């Protein structure tokens, strides 16, 4: 009873409040002239929500003809609902989503609005880095995606513990192993990780595979064109096993969510964490002075350097009846001005190269430089490969973690899944 009443109240609030807020901001005009843009967002946490509100407010100030109706869905639920949204007869006009493969699935199903005109009109090919342009295109080579922000992944560490163990930031795999040994020597756990949600382990796989076999092999593997039980992949896991054999990770990582696993690091018991830039959102601010990061160590110097840098952004539905509005909003989202403002409000660095670099603090600048110096930008395991494959793959990483000696069997089974997933696709 109370539940249904509450949902009802929430719904009527959402329905009532959105136009109210939007209506208050636009100047009173004849209703017919205003056109409403439906925007579906997955930014359900307070911070992203606030940022989106700000973005919409600024957009409406500049474009008084448009009203934006925002509809926020919880992040994980959004991943499921977006299919229903896009397949329905009356989809939202503009939606948040991820660049690369995750976006291409919808583009292949002809559910996305072609943005070639918008890109040409605003000269966006000159404004976004090449790697970002690449992940904004569908498989047919047309633009479907408006990227907004991206963030680096790196090994975050506590300099004070490195000092205590008398080690320098490692650049090669041998150095890295030596650092682990030295940290163990002073009674610290070298690495922390929480794998209750297993995606954190996928970062390790991405880097081991890219550093051992190169980004090209990695992407072919992600596309199902290489076998999981190949010698190359086994070599990549071999490095992983070196760390497991050394007990370099905290015990029972499956018991922790990724945020919980920060605790040993904050308390000074663990020294390093392979994590995205968003670690800063959860790391206690007062402890951030003693937190730095370095590029994942080079394993084979002869292999091009690939980095994980997931890119977020927006796209429009192909069925939108407000193409002009969608173009206007997406165009605004792509501007340096908008992305700069978003960064100042706590977002990740924008992709537009016209953003004044002086707004970036030293750490952000360092991360961007790291990405610019890399040879290839990957999106992250569960964004680069088929969702079904990602689910099976991440599960296999945890199984390997529990049972490293069964690697061959695990990879054989995983490759059966790969064959099935990509056969279904064909």
């Amino acid at each position, binding site marked *: 009873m109370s539940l249904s009443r509450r949902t009802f109240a929430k719904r009527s609030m959402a329905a009532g409040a959105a136009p109210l807020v939007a209506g208050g901001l636009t100047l009173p005009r004849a209703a017919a002239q205003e056109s409403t843009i439906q925007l579906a967002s997955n930014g359900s946490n307070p911070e992203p929500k606030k940022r989106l509100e700000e973005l919409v407010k600024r957009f409406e100030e500049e474009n008084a003809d448009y009203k934006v109706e925002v509809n926020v869905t919880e992040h994980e639920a959004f991943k499921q609902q977006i*299919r229903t949204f896009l397949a329905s007869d009356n989809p939202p006009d503009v939606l948040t989503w991820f660049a690369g493969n995750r976006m291409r699935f919808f583009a292949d199903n002809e559910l996305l609005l072609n943005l070639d005109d918008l890109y040409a009109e605003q000269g966006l090919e000159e404004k976004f880095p090449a790697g970002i342009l690449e992940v904004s295109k569908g498989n047919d080579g047309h633009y479907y995606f408006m990227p907004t922000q991206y963030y680096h992944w790196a090994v975050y560490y506590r300099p004070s513990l490195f000092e205590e163990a008398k080690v320098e930031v490692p650049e090669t795999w041998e150095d890295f192993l030596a650092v682990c040994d030295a940290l163990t020597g002073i009674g610290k756990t070298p690495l922390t990780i929480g794998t209750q949600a297993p995606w954190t382990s996928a970062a390790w796989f991405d880097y081991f595979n890219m550093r051992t076999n190169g980004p090209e092999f990695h992407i072919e593997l992600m596309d199902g064109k290489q076998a999981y039980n190949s010698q190359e992949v086994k070599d990549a896991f071999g490095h992983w096993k070196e760390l497991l054999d050394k007990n370099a990770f905290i015990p*029972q990582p499956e*018991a922790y969510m990724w945020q919980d696993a920060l605790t040993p690091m904050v308390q000074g018991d663990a020294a390093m964490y392979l994590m995205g830039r968003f670690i800063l959102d959860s790391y206690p601010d007062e402890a951030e002075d003693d937190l730095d990061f370095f590029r994942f160590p080079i394993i084979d110097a002869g292999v091009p350097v690939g980095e994980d840098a997931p890119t977020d952004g927006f796209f429009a539905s192909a069925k939108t009846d407000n193409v002009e509005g969608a173009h206007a909003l997406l165009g605004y989202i792509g501007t340096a001005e908008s992305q700069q403002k978003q960064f100042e409000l706590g977002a990740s660095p924008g992709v537009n190269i016209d953003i004044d670099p002086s707004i970036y603090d030293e750490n952000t600048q360092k991360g961007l430089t790291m990405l610019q110096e890399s040879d290839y930008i990957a999106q992250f395991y569960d964004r680069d490969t088929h969702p*079904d494959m990602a*689910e099976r793959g991440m599960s296999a990483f945890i199984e390997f973690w529990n049972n490293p000696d069964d690697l061959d069997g695990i990879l054989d089974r995983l490759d059966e899944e790969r064959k099935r997933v990509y056969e279904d696709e064909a």
Partner: protein
Amino acid sequence: MATMATPTPATTTVAEKKTRFPRRTNWWVPYAFLAMPLILYFTWVIGPMFFSLYMSFTNADGISRMDWVGFRNYRRLFNDDIFWVSFWNNVRWLIAFITIPIVLGLSLALIFNNDLPGTRFFKAGFFSPMVVSSVVIGVVWSWMYQPYGLINEMLSQLGRDGTPIGFLSDPKLVTWSIIGAGLWRQVGYVMLLYLAGLKNVDTTLVEASRVDGASAFESFRDIVLPLLRPVTVIIVVISTIDALRSFDLVNIMTRGGPFNRSSVLAQMMYIEAFNNYAMGYGAAIATILGLISLVLILYYLNRTMKDEMEY
């Protein structure tokens, strides 16, 4: 479908109201009254059930065209390790849910059936988990199960050394840990049903048996237990259903992990259909899960009905 054809009765019923005792009732009148609920039932329950069955023979992914693939989803299912892991975990849930709550719930009900001081408080205490949403139960128990959570801390206070027990990270332990949280909720529920049942047991019968020289245990076994039979039937059916549809706690506490070792069929179905977008495959899992429930419940009800007849 037949209900669609029945005419709407609005005017005729008004006419009939005038005669207080209608001589004969038109055969379609009950159907007319049932039309609305039946239409809803067919639209929202029966229809989707058959659609889901149909979907299990397709490669539906929620967006692209659905193509008929015959038994491919089912063939894949029976060769899928995760299916068998989930299936056996469901069996574990089933065994635990049928045995433990009945034994504990009945014991508690027998204790609280006596008017001891403070029983109200304890009754309310044992029943209170039922009031809490299962999501909250899942979150609270996963905190308690953490390596440095309540349970491990208590154990180490009691003198247990070594690494903390990985209730939710040890592949062998994880399903039992989640079942533990589920039982915590279920026991109070079963206790309440038995308490209600005990109120209907005629105390004079028990007293008579005692006068005739039966021991307390004998009168319990031969008088009380048979009289509680109808309640037990209900409890077994409810527990079976609850065990087979277990999903909320699994999804909240581990999402099936580590590496699917705590998965159950409903959890697997959810992941396949809504995470991997394999709707057809998910529908096949749902069909199998539905069949299992149907067979178990029909078998049990059929057997107990037969016993009832013999009385």
